[in-house]
C-alpha cells in the first residue's frame, strides 16, 4: 500500500513524565484543616516542549477530514472552511461571559437573532431555540416541547412512534422525555403507511422521522404520513441531521413537520472535534412556539435582548445559552454560502451520493431501487460466503488511506455499509474511493481479515476492553499488578 499512517511510540503522560515541582503550597491559611486536600492531585507536569510534542505526535496518529476522505454515513463529514474557525476565535466572540448584561452583547444577540430567523426560514418553522448543545439534545428538547404542548392541551399522551431505521438517539431521547417507544418496521426501505396507521392512536405524542431516511431514501409519502399522524392528534418530529439532502429543495415545514432539530455541526459546518462540541437548535411551528426553552434572542426597536418572559416555556435545557462557538460558525457558514450556496450544497451532496452509488452498485448490492439523497447504504452480505464481513471491508479501506464508512447501521440492511460522500468532495476523490472499494471487495479473505496493516495499530481486541475495563491509568496499574 502506498498510504501509511504515522506511528510514534507515545507512552501515556504518566509513564513518561512526572511532577517533581515541590510547590510547598499550604492552604491552612484559607481553609479549615478537615476540608483541605492533603496530597496534590497525581497529575504529571510537562514543560511546554514536552506537552506540545506529546500531543503533536498523538495528533499525527489520528485521521481527520483535512487528512482525507471521511465518508462516514449519517455524520456529514464534510470539509469546513477555515474562516469559520477564525471568526469563532476572535476575542470579541470567545471572550464574552454568559452573565454579561444584554447591553454588552449586542453583536452576539444580533447574530443569534438572525441565525434563529435564517434557520427558521430554511426549515420552514416559525420559531427556533438555539440552546441545545447537540442533535440528541435537540431531540430531547423537542420531546419536552411536545410533552408540554400536549399537557397544555390537557392530553396525557405517552407514546412516541418511530421507524426501525431511525437513529438511536431518536428512541433514546424520547424515552428520556418519559415516552414509551413504538417501533414500526419499514417496508421497502420506507415508512410502511399501514403499519404507521396501525401504530398511532390518541396515545401518540409524536412520530419521529428523518427524511431522507437513514437509507438515503426520500419518504415521498411524507404528506400522507403527516396526515396519519396529525389525524390522531400527534405531532410530527423531524430529525434534521440530514438537512444537507434537502436544503432549498423542500423543508420540514413544507412537508408538514411540527418540530425539527438541526445538527449545526453537520449541515452547517462546524468541525466535529473528535466527537463534539456541536449544536442542535430546535425549530417549531407556531402553535408550539411558546413552549421553546428560554431565553430566546429577541429584538425591540434597534436593541436586542434575551427574552425570558415566555411563561409557557419548558425552561432551560443548558446551563447557559447553548454552544455559542458553534452557532457563530454556522452563521459564518450561512453568510458565506448564502441561500444559493446552501441550495448548491444540497445539489452537490445528492449528486455526489448518486454518482458514487452508481459506481459502487457495480460490485456491491445496494438494496431498494431509485434515487438516493445525500447518502446510500450498500450491503456486504454477498461477501459472507467467503467469510468476509463488512467490518473487514471497513478496516481494509483504512489501508487505502480512506476513513471507513459507517457500518452496521441502519440495521435494516444486512452487513450495511452507509456511505455519505458529502458535498465538498470532488469527482476525483469519489472515483478513487470507488476504485479502492472495488479493489478491497475483490481482495482475498486473508488480506481483509488481516486489515488494517497501515494504521498506527492493527485490529483491536475490543472485547478485552469491555471485559477488563481499564478506564484510567490507575486501572491500568492495577491490571498490570494482577
Amino acid at each position, binding site marked *: 500500500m502506498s498510504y501509511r499512517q504515522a506511528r510514534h511510540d507515545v507512552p501515556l503522560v504518566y509513564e513518561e513524565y512526572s511532577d517533581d515541582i515541590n510547590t510547598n503550597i499550604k492552604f491552612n491559611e484559607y481553609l479549615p484543616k478537615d476540608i483541605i486536600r492533603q496530597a496534590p492531585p497525581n497529575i504529571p507536569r510537562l514543560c511546554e516542549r514536552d506537552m506540545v510534542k506529546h500531543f503533536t505526535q498523538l495528533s499525527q496518529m489520528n485521521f481527520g477530514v483535512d487528512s482525507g476522505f471521511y465518508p462516514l454515513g449519517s455524520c456529514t463529514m464534510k470539509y469546513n472552511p477555515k474562516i469559520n474557525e477564525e471568526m469563532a476565535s476572535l476575542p470579541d466572540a470567545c471572550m464574552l461571559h454568559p452573565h454579561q448584561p444584554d447591553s454588552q452583547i449586542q453583536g452576539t444577540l444580533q447574530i443569534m437573532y438572525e441565525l434563529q430567523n435564517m434557520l427558521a426560514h430554511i426549515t420552514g418553522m416559525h420559531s427556533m431555540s438555539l440552546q441545545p448543545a447537540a442533535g440528541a439534545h435537540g431531540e430531547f428538547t423537542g420531546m419536552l416541547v411536545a410533552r408540554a404542548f400536549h399537557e397544555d392541551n390537557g392530553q396525557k399522551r405517552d407514546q412516541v412512534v418511530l421507524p426501525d431505521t431511525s437513529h438511536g438517539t431518536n428512541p433514546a431521547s424520547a424515552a428520556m422525555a418519559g415516552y414509551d417507544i413504538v417501533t414500526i418496521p419499514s417496508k421497502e426501505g420506507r415508512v410502511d403507511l399501514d403499519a404507521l396507521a396501525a401504530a398511532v392512536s390518541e396515545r401518540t405524542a409524536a412520530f419521529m422521522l428523518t427524511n431522507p431516511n437513514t437509507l438515503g431514501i426520500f419518504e415521498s409519502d411524507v404528506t400522507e404520513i403527516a396526515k396519519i399522524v396529525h389525524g390522531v392528534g400527534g405531532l410530527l418530529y423531524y430529525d434534521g441531521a440530514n438537512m444537507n439532502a434537502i436544503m432549498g*429543495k423542500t423543508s420540514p415545514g413544507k412537508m408538514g413537520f411540527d418540530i425539527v432539530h438541526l445538527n449545526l455541526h453537520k449541515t452547517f459546518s462546524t468541525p466535529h472535534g*473528535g466527537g463534539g462540541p456541536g449544536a442542535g437548535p430546535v425549530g417549531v411551528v407556531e402553535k408550539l412556539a411558546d413552549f421553546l426553552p428560554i431565553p430566546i434572542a429577541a429584538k425591540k426597536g434597534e436593541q436586542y435582548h434575551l427574552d425570558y418572559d415566555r411563561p409557557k416555556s419548558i425552561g432551560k435545557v443548558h446551563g447557559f445559552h447553548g454552544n455559542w462557538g458553534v452557532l457563530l460558525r454556522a452563521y459564518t457558514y450561512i453568510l458565506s454560502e448564502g441561500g444559493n450556496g446552501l441550495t448548491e450544497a444540497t445539489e452537490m451532496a445528492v449528486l455526489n451520493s448518486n454518482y458514487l452509488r452508481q459506481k459502487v452498485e457495480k460490485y456491491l448490492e445496494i438494496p431498494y431501487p431509485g434515487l438516493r439523497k445525500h447518502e446510500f447504504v450498500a450491503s456486504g452480505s454477498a461477501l459472507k460466503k467467503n467469510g468476509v464481513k463488512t467490518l473487514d471491508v471497513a478496516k481494509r479501506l483504512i489501508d487505502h488511506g480512506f476513513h471507513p464508512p459507517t457500518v452496521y447501521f441502519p440495521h435494516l440492511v444486512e452487513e450495511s455499509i452507509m456511505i455519505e460522500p458529502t458535498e465538498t468532495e470532488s469527482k476525483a476523490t469519489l472515483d478513487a474511493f470507488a476504485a479502492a472499494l472495488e479493489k478491497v471487495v475483490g481482495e482475498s479473505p486473508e488480506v481483509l481479515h488481516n486489515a488494517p496493516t497501515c494504521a498506527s495499530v492493527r485490529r483491536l481486541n475490543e472485547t478485552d476492553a469491555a471485559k477488563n475495563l481499564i478506564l484510567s491509568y490507575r486501572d491500568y496499574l492495577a491490571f498490570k499488578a494482577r
Partner: protein
Amino acid sequence: MAQQSDKEQMLAALNMKSTEELFGDIPKGVRSEITEIQNGLCEPATRSRISSLLARNRPAGKMSSFLGGGSYDFYIPSAVKSVTGRSEFLTSYTPYQPETSQGLLQVLFEYQSMMCELTGMDVVNNSLYDYSTGLGEAALMASRLKPGKVFLIPETISWPRFSVLQNYCKGPGISLVKYRYDRKTGLTDIADFKSKLSGDVFGALVETPNCLGVLESQVDEIRQALGDRILVAGVNALSLAAVRPPGDYGADIMISEGQMFGNPTNFGGPMLGIMGCKKTHVRKMPGRVIGLTDDIEGRRAYCMTLQTREQHIRREKATSNICSNEALTTVATASYLALRGGSGLRETAFYTMKKSRELAKAISAVKGCKAPVFSGSYFNEFVASFPVPAETLIEKMSEKGVLPGVEMALDGMEKNLLVAVTDRITDADIKKYAQVLKEVVQ
C-alpha cells in the same frame, strides 16, 4: 466542491441533464426554496461583516471581569490552543474506527486518567454537554441505581441548573425537594437535610462550593446520613487542587464543569460536563468511555468501550441519549492539565484563593459593603452585599470597565453579587474594583 466539468461528467454518468432530476422523488407539493437568505458573500466580505457585528460586543475578557457563576475566565496557554488547532483532532469524528483514531483515543484516555486523579473518582466519562445537563444525567443515573422518586437538592442551587434538572426529571417523574441552607454560614442545614430523608428519596445533590461560593464542610456527615442512597457531588474542578475530592468522601457520582481548564468562556458554550462515578456504577453511567486494550500484535491501544450502554446500540434502553459530546474541550483540558500538573493546579488554586480574599477585604473596606456575606469557607468565589441594587451596581461599574459579579436569584439577595476571581485577575484589577465601587456607591 466539484468543478463545473466534473459536475457535467457526473450527471452524464447518471444519465441526467440537470441536478433537478436528482430531486424528482420529492413531490411537487412539498417543494420549496430558500428565498429569504441573501446570496453568498466572498470570504473578505464575510470576515468584515462578522467582525463588525462582533465589534458591537464588549467582551468581559477585555474588562476587569469578576464574573463567574459557573463560567470562569482562566488564562489559556498558547500551547493549549495549538493542540486543539491540530486539524487531526479538530476535524475528526467520534473515534468509531479505533485503528485510525489512536491519537485522539489516547488523549481521551489520558483525560479520563487525569480527571480520576483530580476528583478521586474511580471512573470519569468522556464529557457531557455541561454541568447542568451533567446534573440532569446524574439524577437519572442515581434513580436507575436506587428505587425512589425523590431527589434532594440544595435550596441554593442556581435557577438555570434547577430548571435544566427539572427538565431531565420530567421523563421518569422524579420530584425535586430542596433542603435549606444555614443563613449565616451558607452551609447545608443538616437538620433540615436529615428531616427530608424520607423513604422515597433515592439520592441527594451536594454542591461544594455551592451557588453561594461556600465550600461544604459537612460532607462526611451528609454521606453518612444518606446511608446507601446515592450521593451526587457537584464540585468546582479547580478547587479539588485544594479541597478534598468527592472520591475521598464517598460520592457515588461526581459532576463538575471543565470549561475553566483551557477553554474560553465563549458566552457560555461550549462547556465541558465532567462526570465520574464509582466503578460499581459504571454500567449505569451515561456517556462515552475509552478503554485500554491491545491489538492483535499485542501493541497497546485504546478504543471506546461499554458501548452497549449507549443509544446507538441500546436505543430507548440506553443510559442516555447523548451522542455528540464535547470531545474537543476534553482535548483542551487534557493538554491544559498536563501543562499545569498537580503542582501547577495548586499554584493556580492558591493564587485565586489569595486574590479573592484580598478582594473581599477591599470590598468590605468600602462603606456599606460586606464580603464575604457568609461565614463558611470559600474557594475563589463569594457573595458580597452592597448598599445599592445589584443591577445598578453592574450597570454603573461596567461603564467604568469593571464587571463586579453575577446577580443572585435567591430571595432577599437583590443587593448581593456573586464575585469570582480567576488567575487573570491582577492586583491592578482588584484596586480598580475597590476604586470604582467607591465611586459608584458614594
